[in-house]
């Protein structure tokens, strides 16, 4: 926890209304300003107490506070440093340790995740039982999407028409395993817009989950491997369609101490920069666009996806009230902090529901899983899609 970064905070409180846990509980300790104060206490000699660790753990890492801060406090870096300290210094209770161990030995590894897939139906049935064992396990089971058919991605997808760019594409672990259709759509959209899409095989986790949970060593290992993969592929731009992955990969320079040698851009960011060429076919739909925290706050990408969606004839875009507040998914948060995540999910579901939109669009699979689960709990339902899927449908002239 860098005291210099802590000192940047002038205690103005502008972060408070954007912080999901402050919105939930209204307590200083569960706000960014309060957490920075706790960090300061630690730096000045207070050991990490269980209470302190609890407030750090409760942070979703949504980074809405970073967007809101007028003083430019790097809370993103501070909380990462803090999580590492907590992991190092704080002794968690055994049950909690076991759950965390399970998640971190599972999620960052696509092959292990793949083993889980046939069990997904089973997980659904087991959910009530798991809930009793540990709420986190219950949450994990409840969130599991239906297992889709696996799709093998080609190594290269050639541009349609004149080639305008060559880009690498990250397949991601959760995206790749649970939402392969999103990756397929991403590749098609890029190709239709005139890009050669290079998809190196053997991609692993980019390290995002580990970074966000204070597992720096694991994160660095995974990051190095990802950098190697794309360097070998020889691309100078890597397009990412998962918000969490994109935000972590943009920070590789800081994590690894050297620049990776390629640009990392979110799909929408890249497409907006490239400019539309392919014909958009009408999609008569009302759409609520959900700002994934790791896209809106961590990467500052808000306008581009909206612009892309508005560019589709017949599509009506509706704003979700309190858009800046996290849906509670936040990477592994819904697994480790199920109650808070559930409450935030319910709030977001109500906000999304109030738009009356037919389709919920987001750039993060975690958010989508979370919001749909919350809407179902509330007896509502909504169709969901990734920005890439909506664009894909429009470019190909098929319905969604």
């Amino acid at each position: 926890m860098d005291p210099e970064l802590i000192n940047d905070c002038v205690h103005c409180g502008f972060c408070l209304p954007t912080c999901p846990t402050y919105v939930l509980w209204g307590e200083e300790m569960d706000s960014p300003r309060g957490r920075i104060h706790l960090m300061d206490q630690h730096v000045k000699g207070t050991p990490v107490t269980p209470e302190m660790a609890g407030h750090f753990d409760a942070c979703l890492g949504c980074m809405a506070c970073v967007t809101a801060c007028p003083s430019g406090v790097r809370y993103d870096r501070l909380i990462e440093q803090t999580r590492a300290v907590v992991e190092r210094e704080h002794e968690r209770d055994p049950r909690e340790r076991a759950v965390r161990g399970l998640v971190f030995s599972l999620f960052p590894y696509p092959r292990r995740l793949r083993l889980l897939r046939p069990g997904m139906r089973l997980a659904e049935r087991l959910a009530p039982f798991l809930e009793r064992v540990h709420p986190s396990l219950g949450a994990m089971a409840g969130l599991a999407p239906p297992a889709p058919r696996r799709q093998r991605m080609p190594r290269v997808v050639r541009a349609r028409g004149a080639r305008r760019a060559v880009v690498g594409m990250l397949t991601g672990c959760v995206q790749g395993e649970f939402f392969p259709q999103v990756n397929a759509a991403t590749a098609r959209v890029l190709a239709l817009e005139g890009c050669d899409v290079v998809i190196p095989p053997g991609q692993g986790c980019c390290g995002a989950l580990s970074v966000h949970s204070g597992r720096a060593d694991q994160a660095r290992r995974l990051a190095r491997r990802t950098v190697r993969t794309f360097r070998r592929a020889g691309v100078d731009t890597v397009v990412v369609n998962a918000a969490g992955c994109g935000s972590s990969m943009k920070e590789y320079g800081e994590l690894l101490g050297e620049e990776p040698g390629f640009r990392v851009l979110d799909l929408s960011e890249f497409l907006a920069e490239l400019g539309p060429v392919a014909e958009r076919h009408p999609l008569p739909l009302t759409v609520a666009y959900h700002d994934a925290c790791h896209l809106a706050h961590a990467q500052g990408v808000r306008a581009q996806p909206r612009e892309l969606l508005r560019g589709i004839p017949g599509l009506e875009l509706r704003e979700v009230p309190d858009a800046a507040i996290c849906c509670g998914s936040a990477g592994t948060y819904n697994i480790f902090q199920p109650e808070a995540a559930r409450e935030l999910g319910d709030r977001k579901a109500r906000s999304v529901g109030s738009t009356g939109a037919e389709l919920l669009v987001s750039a993060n699979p975690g958010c989508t899983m979370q919001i749909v689960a919350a809407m179902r709990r509330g007896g509502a339902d909504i169709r969901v899609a990734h920005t890439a899927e909506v664009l894909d449908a429009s470019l190909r002239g098929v319905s969604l």
Partner: protein
Amino acid sequence: MLDTLIEALRGVLPVEWVITDPVRLRTYECDGLTYHRATPGVVVLPETAEQVARVVGLCNEFAVPFVARGSGTGLSGGALPREDGVLIVTSRMRRILEVDLPNRRAVVEPGVTNLAITEAVRDQGYYYAPDPSSQQICSIGGNVAENSGGAHCLKYGFTVNHIEACEIVTPDGDLVTLDRMDPGYDLLGAFVGSEGTLGIATKITVRLSRAPQAVTTVLAAFESIEQGGKAVSAIIGAGIVPAAIEMMDALAIEAAEAAVACAYPAGAGAVLIVELDGPAVEVERQFERLREICSDAFELRVAADPAERAAIWKGRKSAFAAVGRISPAYIVQDGVVPRTSLPRVLAEIDRLSAAYDIRVANVFHAGDGNLHPLVLFDDAEPGAGERAEAVSGAILDLCIEHGGSITGEHGVGVDKAKYMPKMFSEADLDTMQLVRCAFDPRGLSNPGKVFPTPRLCGEVPGVRKGVHPLVESGRAEQF
């Protein structure tokens, strides 16, 4: 004493909302003014007015002082806790209870943020007029305590002009409603702005205003602050009452530029932000006049849409926090001078700045003479902090000298209590103390704020009659 009280508090509130863990308590040690710190004895987070009343009742029973806090954004240390007392935090009381557009009012709990009220009624064409810079987070309860202003109070007035009624918990622990409609003394008027020393607001009825038909925001860049000042006088002299007239000097512009890249005209010695609002035809005519008046400006920008309007305001609204980018440490001052004294006072601030070798960035509500000098210093440099303090204090002396005030909107709190005797005579302060004693005879509600050395109630000014009975019985401390 406190331990017994804490036990009793746990009987009134769910245990998780009675905070006693020392690490947690310390996060409440200061509000927006970090210069003063005190770890509260205990923090409670009530959810209902009845809970607040019971907590205050218990404080009375145990003769323990209490302090109310909303979002903790105050800049005068008004919510500085007492180590021997209870901090009552209203941030969980944040329901908008009623929106009544036909009567242009809303009933809200004290923890609701200022901006949340506007957001609740904006689509219907209404808004809540007072707009302190911290409006997205500051609570309406805190606004009531501080009588908060904002950039637009030049035309629309302060919190007190927009509050219709308050349900309060008196320092005795009674729930009483103060209503503008009631005959009798204007206790509501006295309560608003009393900085938590007369009780705690638990339910607030605010007046909503109709959104103006047209808003025109103009950014005028001048070569010097004198030219800007002249334009301000000319605008007022022309009989125009803009919604806001804000001014920033070169150093403040530099800071805002560093923080939010507001892209104000390069090379400006001062920028003036003037906002006209009202009926479209009126705004249009006034804008024509304004354009003539600002003929000295080397650039005049007019916001064409809400986005451009926001862009103009962005630099101004971020100015306080932004100076952190150009200086390791700073003091935000808040003083008022008659508008016509502005040029002289600014020149004197310049002189002070040079004499003490301390940079001062000026951001101010020029329309009503409310200065917010930002006194910049490097806390690593020995003696710099003291010099900055001296400059900051001297600026307040200037304000008093010119017939102004030591605070226009941040409040007296703990920070400026010592300046009160410079602005007011002993008789003035004793008279204010009468109000305090009527509401809070035992001095338990936010003691130590606003007044430098409050007398005990029942004490006759000037004549001491031995040890006060409350002191004798150990129920109060002599200040």
